[in-house]
Structure formats: C-alpha cells, structure tokens
C-alpha cells in the first residue's frame, strides 16, 4: 500500500522530498525545532500537495499547478543585497522602518534596526537556532492548522523576521518588510515570520513582495501574528511578484479582547498567488476589518481563502474583497465566517465582488457561514459582473474617453476597499499602483 502511494507522487512532491532530505540537517533550529520540521514534513508527505478534492483548495489545484519544485534559494550575495535596497518603492512615501528579506534571508545590514523602546527585532533563523522562547512559545501554535502548504513551510522555513512589541508600546512608525526575490534561475523561498504585539501595543505592518519577471521562482511564506488584549495591529500586504512566480502565503492571527485588528491584501503580480488567512478572534469586544483586492490580467490565478473565526462574544468583523479581472485571469475567493458557541452577539458581514473586463476571465466565490451561537448577526454576499454600461455611457457623454471612463469606474470599484485603510499615504500609494495597472491594460 505504501508503495502505491509512493508511485502516485508528482515530480514536485518527489523534488520536495529530496530537498527536505538534503537540507534538513543544515536548516536552522534546536533539536526541538528539527523534530518539528520532521513531523511537519511527514504530515505534508502523507497527504501531498493539495488538489481540488481538498475543499480548502477546491479552485486552486496546486498538485496540477505546481509542476515542479525549485531548489532552495542560496543566500543573497552582496550585489543582490545592494539591488534590494531600492525595492519596496511603492511605499517610498510612507515614513516606515524598513526591514529587508532578500531571497528568503533577513538582511540586518540593509534593515533599519535603530533602537526603539519596547521593540525587538530578530532574524527568524537566529531565533530558531537559539531556541528563542518567544518563537518556541508561538510557532505553529497561533492558529492550529493541518494545511499542507503551511506544513511545508514549517518543514523548510529558512529565515524571516521576528518582531516583538512590548506591552503598552505604540510604535512611532509602521514597519515595512520588503521581501525581494533577486534570482536568475528558479529557486524556492521558505520565509517564516512572527509578530507578537503584547497587551495594549500598537503596530502597523506593511509587507511587499517583488521579484524578477519570467523566472519561475516559488515563494512559500507564513506569518503568525499574536495580538494581545487591547492591542491595535494592522497589516497591509502587496503581492507584486514576477510574472512567472508562484506565491503561497499563510497568515495565522490570534487576536485578544478589546483589540483592533485589520488586514488588507492586494495582489498585483505573480502567475499563481494564494493568500490563506486564518484569523481567530479569541477575546471579547474586538473589532476586525479584513479586506483585499486582486488586479489580474493575462493568465494570472489568485486565490484568497479566509477563515474568520469568532471564538469570543461581542466581536465585530467586516470582510470586503474585490477582484478586477482582465484577459483569461482567474480569481478565487473563499470566505468562511465561523462563529463558535461562546461567541454570542457576534456581528459579522462579508462581501466579495468581482469585475470581469473580458469574456475569458473567471471569478469563483464561495462564501460560507458556520454558526454555533444563537444570538448573532452575520451576513454575506457576492457579486460578479461586467462594468455598468450605463455608468460608462454617462461618463462618456460628458466627454470622458472610453478607456478613461473605465479606469474611473475600476478605480472606484477597488477604491471601496482601499478607503478602509487608515493611513493616507498607504492609501495613496495603493491607488497609484492601481492606476499603473489600469494604464498597463490600455
């Protein structure tokens, strides 16, 4: 029987097994971490790459889409580090503390590590090697998951950033993690990061991902966030990978009581992008806003799969997603609001909307409610459609040419989610990126 399973492995799965066997000994970590890696790889190996019969991956058949697994990326050389310094330019106007992760490795020399009271920043590789108690206490435990892609990250994670914000600390500036792939040939990057915001701490995190066009590199990233009681944590993520890249990312967030949590994800580049978000509202009276937009063209495929878990009473969550699809692009939105029995007085609303600009684009939406409490207000909705012809005519009748009229309407469509971001400079930067996308389709 075991032989039969082995025969069914795909070339990518076989390559991953070889990679793990060859790298396991030199990947960073204490013996406990090494044992965790082995267990995670065994978990992955038993089930293989997720495929369409795995419900959470129904519209993104990774087994088919990931034909091969690239070798692990080598650490960046001096030239690659120098080039990375100019990246993350989308948010150049945001006065942020910039941290650089190049080819999956945290680069302290490039990063702004100027001291700030209550803030500690560490490389994940160092934390794993030293058996850092913060990492040992949280890694893989923030929101338990049996997802195969996250397991693969746990097995092969190389480096990333560990951020600790002490109780009551409000960071002066946002932290911008600039992820850069600087590669001439396909390679795989396994990045793992952890953000712990203690009680009443306040932190705004920005992440950008970019890399070269036409090179089939593979990113598997995972970020765990722990937000304590009364904490205010926000993340804005922009996935702008190269045209042939595959980007798989898992966010696991656990939020305490009376906290404010927000997450906003924008997909602008990459051949295949999967953002899976597992957010657990663990304390009462917390407010969470989750939004995102994908702007896709050509044959791009983007998948946002969200589980918003209300585990405590009186929390409010809002989920708003948009997709703009041109060419033969494909967008997937799976959103589940799960309300546990204890989570009475939950107030949750989810809406996803897709705008199809061509006849060959495709939008798949699967909203779900799973409710075990009896006194809640939950709702969801989704739409998919073309631009409103009457609105377009109205704009054109005032002299606005067709492409500009469409651009105004698309901007407005995506703007509805961008407007939810508090920081004005971040909003402006995102609207600029959206305009660039619209210019490119002319």
């Amino acid at each position, binding site marked *: 029987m075991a032989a039969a399973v082995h025969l069914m492995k795909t070339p990518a799965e076989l390559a991953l097994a070889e990679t793990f066997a060859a790298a396991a000994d030199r990947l960073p970590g204490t013996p406990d971490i090494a044992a965790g890696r082995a267990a995670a790889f065994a978990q992955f190996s038993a089930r293989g790459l997720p495929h369409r019969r795995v419900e959470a991956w129904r519209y993104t058949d990774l087994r088919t889409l990931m034909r091969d697994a690239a070798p692990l990326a080598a650490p960046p050389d001096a030239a690659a580090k120098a080039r990375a310094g100019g990246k993350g330019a989308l948010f150049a106007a945001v006065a942020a503390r910039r941290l650089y992760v190049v080819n999956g490795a945290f680069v302290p020399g490039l990063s702004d590590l100027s001291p700030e009271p209550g803030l500690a920043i560490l490389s994940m590789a160092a934390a794993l090697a030293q058996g850092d108690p913060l990492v040992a206490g949280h890694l893989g435990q923030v929101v338990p998951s049996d997802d195969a892609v996250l397991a693969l990250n746990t097995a092969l994670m190389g480096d990333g950033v560990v951020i600790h914000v002490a109780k009551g600390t409000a960071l002066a500036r946002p932290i911008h993690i600039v992820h850069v792939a600087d590669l001439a040939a396909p390679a795989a990057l396994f990045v793992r990061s952890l953000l712990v915001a203690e009680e009443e701490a306040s932190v705004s995190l920005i992440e950008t991902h970019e890399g070269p066009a036409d090179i089939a590199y593979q990113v598997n990233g995972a970020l765990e966030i722990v937000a304590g009681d009364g904490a205010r944590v926000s993340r804005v993520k922009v996935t702008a990978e190269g045209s042939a890249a595959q980007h798989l990312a898992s966010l696991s967030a656990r939020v305490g009581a009376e906290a404010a949590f927000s997450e906003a994800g924008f997909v602008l580049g990459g051949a295949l992008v999967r953002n899976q978000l597992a957010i657990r509202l663990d304390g009462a009276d917390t407010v969470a806003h989750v939004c995102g937009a994908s702007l896709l063209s050509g044959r791009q495929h983007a998948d946002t799969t969200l589980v918003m878990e209300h585990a405590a009473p009186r929390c409010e969550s809002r989920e708003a997603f948009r997709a703009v699809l041109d060419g033969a692009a494909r967008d997937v939105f799976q959103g589940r609001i799960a309300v546990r029995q204890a989570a009475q007085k939950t107030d949750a609303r989810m809406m996803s909307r897709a705008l199809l600009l061509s006849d060959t684009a495709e939008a798949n939406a699967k909203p779900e409610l799973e409710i075990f409490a009896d006194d809640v207000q939950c709702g969801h909705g989704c739409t998919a459609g073309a631009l409103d012809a009457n609105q377009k005519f*109205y704009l054109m009748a005032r002299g606005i040419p067709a492409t500009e009229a469409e651009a105004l309407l698309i901007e407005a469509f995506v703007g509805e989610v961008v407007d939810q971001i508090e920081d004005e400079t971040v909003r402006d930067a995102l609207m600029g990126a959206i305009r660039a996308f619209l210019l490119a389709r002319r």
Partner: protein
Amino acid sequence: MTPLLEIEDLHAEIEGGRKILDGLSLTVNPGEVHAIMGPNGAGKSTLSYVLSGKPGYVITGGSIRLAGVELSELTPDARAALGLFLAFQYPLEIPGVSTMAFLHAAVNAQKKKRGEQEMTSPELLKRVREIGKSLDITAEMLRRPLNVGFSGGEKKRNETLQMLLLEPKLCVLDETDSGLDIDALKVVSAGVNALRAPERSMVVITHYQRLLDYIVPDVVHVLAAGRIVHTGGKELALELEATGYAQFQNEAA
C-alpha cells in the same frame, strides 16, 4: 447661416429590436430654443440617446450634423467635445467617483480633445464654486460621490452645474422637469436660461408644458411615432396641454 443642429430623415432602432425613429427631421439654428413634446413612447428619449451616441441604438438611415459635422459615427465623448450636452432624465449614480474628480476629468478631457489649455484644480474649484452658488449646490455635495444619495432635485441641479461648467454649443434636456418640485424647477430653469446665448441652442424634450413656462421656447415640435408631425410657436405648447396629443397620433398613423 449654418444650422447648429441638422437632423435629416433619421431612422433608428434599438439594437436587435423595435424601430423607434422613423424619418425624423429637425433643424435648430444658433441661439434658438426648440421644445419637443409628445406622448409616451413617441421616441423622445430615444432621440436624446441617438443624438448623444448611447450604445444599443442603431441608426439605420439619415444623418445628424452638429455645426456641419456628421455625428452618427462618433463616440459619445467625441460628440461631447464637439459641444453636445445631454442632460439626463435620470442622472446615474456613480459610487466611488467624487463629483469634483468627475468634473475635473470631464472638463479636461474635452479641452484636451479640442486642443485647449487644460484647467488646473484650483481654477476648476473656483469656477465650480461660483456656479454651485447659483444652483444651491453646497461644498458638501461636491465632496460626495457623483449623484450618490442625491435627491431628484439635487441630481438635476448637478446636471445643470455640469452644463454651465462645460458650456456646450447644444444642450439637449431630456425631461429635465421630471422629479422636480416647483422650487427646484425654478432653480434649474434659471441656470438653463443663464446659458441662453446667440451662439448656443437648446432642445428641450418634455412631456408637460409646465417646464416651458420657465424655459420659454422659440419653436415647439410634436413628436409622434418616431417623427416630427407638427411644428408651431410657443403657443402650441399651451394648445397641447388643453387638447392632448390624440389628434397628432392620428396624423402620424
């Protein structure tokens, strides 16, 4: 004198559907205000859409010239840049596009197309505020998304604002009085009248005579079954109000 608008033997239908305009001819000279009245279903709104180039309508014969330029093959934005303005019966709500951003895009798209100097934001803002004042349009309304949550009267005042700002050669007013109370009607009419000029013409499409008490036409036409069946002076509107359209519907048939 070249007529400003010259429609000759126009035939048009809804794409894949009914024939609506059936040999309509109309000539409007510079400075004139023409009213087009007619029963429901006569083709009044279709005429406004065909003039402005709305997709979904097909011209199957005849011609439309604005100041000597044939319009029928032009896109709506090109027609607008040539000086055609359609005041919509039901102005569209466009969430997410602020009124000011829309006005900025419209004014400068037209100026660009005509090879004129574009307006800067402060210039535009100043001009919009001036016009807004005369139409009771507040700064708060201008900040709102275009027409979103506007009352019927606010939408029509916003249409009038656009017309005054864009200074078209030909204004086509499609049932501008619908949804207006008497106070709003007076404000809108005053705005329209302020635009009357020797080089500018108007086509006022209306079902009721009421609007024509405020925007007094030079010529009144009766549109029935897709063509102009009767033409007279401004007194014709009053006559129609008294007698109805039945006699002309028979004429058309």
